[in-house]
């Protein structure tokens, strides 16, 4: 460090110094980083338990320096329920992709939200199955080309994309639902605030908290990271609008 300068930002301590295996520009790594910044700021590293899914983020336990548990495909919500019920003083989050949370694990997700299990969902929605070769996901946009929908998604055959935030915000026991993204620094700062709010609500035991990250997948969208941001702005956000869908009533402190 040069003389006369002070450090204002460095890599969060809870993020291990390992090189992450994600592709350049992938929002998985941004989410890991922001998540660990929040853990460091709240000082909850020793009592945070994460549940990682099957998908690109299957190795999340190699990067996050908090207790992690691997779950069977789609069952992260069920495993997180168990952890939170046995250890109610811990901050539990499940980190899931769209294939995990919205396809094979829809039942677990919806029932955990319906029961109001007191943990946080981090849902990475990139609209494609990134790890397995770019197949169509439940959240693939109408007309979007994937390796199993080479002519674009046809809603007549496979239905319309699932809007998970809108679905889970209808459950009475879900306390906080927000869709965020990392396409600009301003949105990334909002996303960090959202994750922090979700963890604080979880610590107050108000109900399930659900953060959806409108993510990119440069490799499987067959574009550069820069072009993936344009796709997010022009195609993803009109269908999946960012914002708060549900929050607990404000109380005077």
């Amino acid at each position: 460090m040069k003389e006369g300068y002070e450090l204002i930002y460095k890599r969060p301590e809870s993020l291990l110094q390992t090189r992450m295996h994600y592709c350049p520009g992938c929002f998985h790594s941004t989410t890991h980083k922001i998540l660990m910044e929040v853990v460091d700021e709240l000082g909850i590293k020793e009592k945070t338990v994460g549940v990682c899914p099957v998908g690109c983020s299957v190795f999340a336990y190699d990067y996050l320096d908090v207790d992690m548990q691997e779950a069977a495909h789609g069952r992260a919500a069920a495993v997180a329920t168990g952890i939170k019920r046995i250890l109610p003083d811990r901050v539990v989050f499940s980190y899931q992709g769209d294939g995990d949370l919205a396809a094979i694990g829809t039942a677990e997700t919806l029932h955990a939200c319906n029961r109001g299990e007191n943990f946080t969902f981090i849902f990475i929605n990139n609209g494609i199955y990134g790890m397995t070769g770019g197949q169509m996901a439940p959240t693939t946009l109408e007309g979007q080309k994937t390796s199993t929908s080479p002519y674009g998604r046809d809603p007549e055959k496979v239905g319309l994309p699932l809007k998970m935030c809108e679905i889970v915000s209808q459950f009475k026991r879900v306390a906080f639902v927000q869709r965020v993204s990392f396409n600009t620094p301003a949105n990334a700062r909002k996303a960090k605030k959202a994750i922090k709010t979700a963890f604080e609500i979880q610590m107050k035991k108000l109900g399930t908290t659900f953060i959806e990250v409108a993510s990119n997948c440069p490799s499987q969208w067959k574009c550069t990271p820069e072009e993936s941001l344009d796709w997010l702005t022009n195609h993803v956000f009109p269908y999946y609008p960012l914002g708060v869908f549900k929050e607990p009533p404000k109380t005077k402190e």
Partner: protein
Amino acid sequence: MPQKGYVEISVEGCKGCNLCVLHCPTNCLALNTKDTNSYGLHYAYLAEEDKCIACMNCSVICPDAAITVYKKMAA
């Protein structure tokens, strides 16, 4: 007058996704297209140090947390 600062970008940590270059408000970052790190990837670097205003946009957007930001202390 805007504040002054500088950034350090880890050469081995950078994957050359170009997002920091894209979001730098003063265009002081650049992608080194002539050299690569040991993974064979181009890396971003601080090209014009005088222009850096320590706004932290690059460190917020960097997916791989490769950027460290320093701010000049008030005299």
